[in-house]
C-alpha cells in the first residue's frame, strides 16, 4: 500500500466528519492565516494560536481546466472558497455530475489523495459542492 504524505505538514486533519483545514490566528490582532504563518504578517506579533477552520464555505470563483497542470489531468476544477473565518482558500474542486459550479454556492472540504509519486500518495484538501446547499 502506498505511503500517505500530506502536501503540507499541519495544513489539515482527517476526522470522522471528513476533516478540517488548520490555520493559525494572531493572538494580538486576530488575523487568521491559511496556510499557517510563522508570525503575524499584519502586525508582526509572534504569538500565534492554531485554529480549526469551518468545514463549509462559499465558492468565490472557479474554472475547469482542459489541459494538464503539474499534477492533474483534464478535466479538473480549481477555485477559491471563502470560509467564515475570513480566509479565502485556493483548492482543487471535486466535480459532481448533477451539481454544476456556481459562484456563491455552498462548498465543503474533503481530505483525500491528490496524486501519486512512485510509492507515495500525496494527500491534501479539496472542496466539493454541498448537495442540497444554497444558493
Amino acid at each position: 500500500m502506498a505511503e500517505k504524505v500530506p502536501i503540507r505538514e499541519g495544513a489539515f486533519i482527517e476526522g470522522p466528519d471528513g476533516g478540517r483545514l488548520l490555520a493559525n490566528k494572531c493572538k494580538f490582532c486576530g488575523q487568521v492565516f491559511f496556510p499557517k504563518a510563522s508570525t503575524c504578517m499584519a502586525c508582526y506579533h509572534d504569538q500565534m494560536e492554531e485554529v480549526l477552520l469551518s468545514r463549509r464555505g462559499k465558492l468565490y470563483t472557479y474554472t475547469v481546466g482542459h489541459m494538464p497542470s503539474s499534477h492533474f489531468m483534464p478535466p479538473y476544477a480549481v477555485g477559491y472558497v471563502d470560509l467564515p473565518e475570513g480566509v479565502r482558500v485556493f483548492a482543487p474542486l471535486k466535480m459532481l455530475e448533477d451539481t454544476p459550479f456556481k459562484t456563491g454556492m455552498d462548498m465543503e472540504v474533503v481530505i483525500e489523495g491528490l496524486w501519486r509519486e512512485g510509492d507515495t500518495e500525496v494527500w491534501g484538501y479539496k472542496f466539493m459542492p454541498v448537495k442540497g446547499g444554497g444558493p
Partner: protein
Amino acid sequence: MREVAVIGVGQSQFGKFPEKTVSELGREAAQAAIKDAGITPKDIQVAYTSRLIDAMVTSQTVLKEVGITDIEMVNVENACSGGSTAVRGLWKDIANDVYDIGIAVGVESMTTSPIAGKLIPPDKDDLEGQLGLTMPALFALLARRQMDEHGARLEDFAQVSVKNHHHGCLNPQAQYKREFTIEEVLNSRMICEPVTLLQCCPNTDGAAAVVLSSMNVARKHTANPVKVIGSVLLSGGYAYLRDDITLSPLGSKTVRMAYEMAGVGPEDLDVVELHDAFAPEEILRYEDLGLCRPGEGVELLRSGATEVGGRIPVNPSGGLLALGHPLSASGVRVIAEITLHLRGQAGERQTPDAKVGLAHMLGGSVAGLEAGACGIHILAR
C-alpha cells in the same frame, strides 16, 4: 536625480525559432538597439539582462556576440516583469549618475524550455501551483468574477483577442499576423473555462533591447530624445488584504507612483502597452491604470477607444496575444514599442502625434501574494 533618455531600441523577430539559441535571439535585439542609438558597442558602460528559464550569465552570453565585454553586467529574473526590472535597474544607474549609458536586454527561448506547449506553472514548490493554479487558471478565475461583477460577456473577452490580433497584422515583427473573428476566438480549443486558446498568449522565442543614457549623451545623438519620466517597480502585497480579486492594489499603487513621478495622469496618455497574457486580463488593466473607473473596463473596450485609431490605443504592437510573449523580453519590448510611437516610427500602427506613453508589465504567481511584481515606465517627448 538626472533625467534619462531612451536613445536606442531593438527587437528580434518574435515567433517559434527552436533552432535559435538565446545568444542569437539576444544578439539580434542588442545589435538593433545599438545601431538605432547610433553608438558603438564600446560606448556601453553597463548591461542588465533579464531571462527566466535556464538562466545563467545571460548578459555575458548575449553581449559577447555583440562585442561588449569587460563592463558591469547584471542578470535579473522577475517572472514576466523581468524585462521591466532590467530597464528599471539601468534607469537607476543612469539617473543616479553611476553610469552615462547602458543597455537593457530581455530574452527568452520558450520553444526549447521545459514548459514549451504546457500551461505555465508557478515555482515548482509553490503550494497553489502544486494544487493546479496555472497562469491561465489564475486569469480564468478572474474572468469568472469579471462576468459576475462587471457584466463582462464571453464576446468581450474575445473582442480583446480580435483587436490585438488585428494590431499584430500591422506589426511586421509580430508572431501572428492574422485576423480572427469573435466566433473563431470563442470556438478555439478550451484551455481554462472560459479562456480559449486564442485568448492565451502563445509560446514565443524572442528578445528586445533598449539603450538608455543621460540627457547629455542623448543630445549628441538627437535633438529631441524620448525621456523616461516615470519608472516604478513594486512587488505584490498579501492576497488576504484583497477582498475583490478584480481590483489590483499592486497595479493601482504602481501606476499612482509612476504618474506622480512623471507629473502626468491617465488623461495625458496617448498610447499604452500592457500585459495582456490572457484576453480578459486586458480589461482589468484598463481599470488599474486609470484609463477608466473600476468596473468600467468592459465599457471602454466596447467603445473602441483602445483600438489603433481610437482615443487611447492599447497594445498597438499586437500585445502578448499576437506579437507574442517571450517572458523576460516583454518588459523591455513594451518600452521599445512606446518609444517608436513617440518618435513617429511605428509604421501602420502609429499613434498620431503621440507625446506621452505608458509601458506596463506584470509577472509572477506566488501563493499568498496578489502577484510577483508590476513594472511601469512612462515615456514622453
